[in-house]
């Protein structure tokens, strides 16, 4: 039925099967649209957010998808700036993942503000001292870059490519893509860092505040490195899931292994710096504020185990697997390692936002709990369904994986 649109030389499942899959995903997306509509029309009183938890599931989801989508900028950086040719075989896919992550982040940000129609005030009345201003500018610009990076792939669709104007436009876009990759990398380094900075500058919140290095809090640098480490892990994980669902090998193992190795060593670097940062925070920053490190982990779910889970189970273990050749070449170790790495990044973003707010600072204030409601859960999880939807469509109709034909003769 849609065979004229499918790239030549590759096999795809029958259209009814595909339509059923898309229909299934669309139902969840429709649910998310309803949830978003409820929040937009009725206001944020439809969520479980409150004056103590001004930030909740949405900010966690925002920070998490931006970290996970970091594979796009970092793979582009390695391919175009460092000239590592192997990564061109996975770059298209990383761009799609990045596009989904950043568009989701923008929509979630639009949900999370009380007056969405005034969101443009952040550009019009920009406060240059605010980390959030930098985040807004960089994310918006980088999303534009990702769109420009995604367009040539869309234009490579078999039918679109037949149009001479489209073909030439796409070809010329490809030729200048290094410029956009460099721009994207520059913007990403800044906004990934600024997201860490948004919490790191809160000197009224001992859990989140970090000492400054030059003009930036240390969380600025840690967020950049963790996104560089977990972004490629998420790209590998989604590639493996796509291969599992399509029952095809789509990217050669040497490419995956190289990406895993880079990710692994970045995780090692991140863990080392994070340890130093945590020790300094515990030994110097917190005592100066009159609190001890154990005051920061008072009760469930914010016990010391959350730190051990983040740095140990979701940090050290995947790092060891990824830096060892046997580990990264064994799917039974590689996939769990990427899952742990991604979960570690999500956990880090969660504690840096929600735990920062959860801990009362006034000695006579009380600890309150927060559990997101269905509106927040559905819209926070929707990016993953949206990712499945866009990957399904792109994989079927666009030449996403350059090595697919060779690997599946």
């Amino acid at each position, binding site marked *: 039925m849609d065979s004229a649109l499918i790239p030549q030389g590759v096999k795809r499942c029958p259209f009814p099967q595909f339509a059923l899959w898309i229909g299934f995903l669309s139902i969840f997306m429709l649910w998310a649209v309803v949830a978003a509509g409820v929040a937009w029309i009725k206001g944020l009183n439809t969520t479980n957010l409150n*004056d103590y938890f001004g930030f909740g599931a949405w900010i966690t989801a925002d920070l998490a998808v931006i970290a996970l989508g970091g594979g796009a900028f970092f793979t582009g950086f390695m391919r175009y700036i460092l000239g590592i040719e192997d990564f061109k075989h996975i770059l298209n896919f990383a761009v799609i993942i990045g596009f989904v992550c950043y568009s989701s982040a923008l929509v979630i940000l639009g949900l999370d503000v009380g007056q969405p129609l005034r969101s443009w005030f952040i550009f019009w009345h920009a406060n240059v001292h605010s980390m959030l201003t930098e985040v807004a500018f960089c994310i918006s610009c980088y999303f534009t870059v990702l769109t420009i990076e995604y367009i040539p792939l869309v234009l490579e669709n078999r039918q679109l490519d037949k149009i001479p104007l489209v073909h030439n436009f796409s070809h010329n876009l490809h030729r200048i893509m290094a410029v956009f990759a460099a721009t994207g990398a520059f913007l990403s380094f800044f906004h990934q860092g600024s997201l860490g900075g948004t919490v790191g500058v809160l000197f009224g919140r*001992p859990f989140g505040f970090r000492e400054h290095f030059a003009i930036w809090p240390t969380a600025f640098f840690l967020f950049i490195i963790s996104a560089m480490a977990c972004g490629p892990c998420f790209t590998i994980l989604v590639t493996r899931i796509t291969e599992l669902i399509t029952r095809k090998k789509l990217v050669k193992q040497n490419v995956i292994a190289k990406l895993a190795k880079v990710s692994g060593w970045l995780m090692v670097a991140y863990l080392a710096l994070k340890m130093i940062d945590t020790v300094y925070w515990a030994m110097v920053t917190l005592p100066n504020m009159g609190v001890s490190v154990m005051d920061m982990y008072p009760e469930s779910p914010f016990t010391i185990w959350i730190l051990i889970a983040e740095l140990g189970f979701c940090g050290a273990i995947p790092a060891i697997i990824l830096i060892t050749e046997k580990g990264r070449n064994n799917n039974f170790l590689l996939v769990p390692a990427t899952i742990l790495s991604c979960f570690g990044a999500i956990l880090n973003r969660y504690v840096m936002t929600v735990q920062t707010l959860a801990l009362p600072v006034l*000695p006579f204030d009380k600890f309150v709990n927060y559990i997101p409601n269905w509106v927040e859960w559905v819209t926070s999880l929707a990016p993953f369904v949206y990712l499945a939807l866009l990957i399904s469509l792109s994989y079927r109709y666009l030449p996403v994986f350059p090595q697919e034909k060779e690997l599946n003769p």
Partner: protein
Amino acid sequence: MKEEHKEGAHGHKEKYKYGMVIDLDKCTGCGACMVACMTENNVPFRKDESNKLVSTAWMRVFKATNGKSYPDIDVCYFPRPCMHCEGEHGHAPCVSVCPATATDYNYETGIVSQIYTRCFGCRYCMAACPYHARYFNWWDPVWPDKMEKALSPDVSPRMRGVVEKCSFCFHRFQRARDHAYAEGRREIREDEYQTACTQACPADAIIFGDLNNPEHKVYKLKKSPYAFRLLERLGTNPKVYYLSTRSWVRRAGDNYLAGERSK
């Protein structure tokens, strides 16, 4: 009266530095300050105000105890308006983070204001404030029948989706200044500008004035050996001082490590 402008830590010429001194030994926790504040500033309320996590109170009275059981228990009430922090370099925690410049530090008065029509409700300022002095409008205000006619015409009501907070009754400052100018004066007398909570307190526990002006009561009171500010160690540099002769109350105003001596 102060003749010349003083230079603040931020390098700007500061004409006034309005602030409060709250005597906790006098406060009975009656809540009159909260009621006066709500009335004066058109603070919205709902039929069911039992969930305090979504209820707005620019002035909120916290209750603290010495942690002992009867008969040794001692109770203290902490009225908490916005602290109008000056920060270390003139950057209050909330002012520097607001991405849309919707919250502003007024260098003439030292008052931290909120521009409701510019706020787009990101709530970053709420995350930055350790005092929980900022409130989000989760709902549009709905006033009981005929109450709209009793609203203060000097304070604009806030719509759903924006953050609001105590303004030290800034409209009263504007009114007092207009009055002084009309009389050919350039300075405002102490009694001409007083906040609603100050005037409502039956125990006279809240004193308001210019912290820089030696003729104002707050100038002397803030120098009392019993004076302290909330969470001073964080570097927020608040303009609200508290007084108490009870050492456990002064200790309750900040965080201390076990075994560490308080001021």
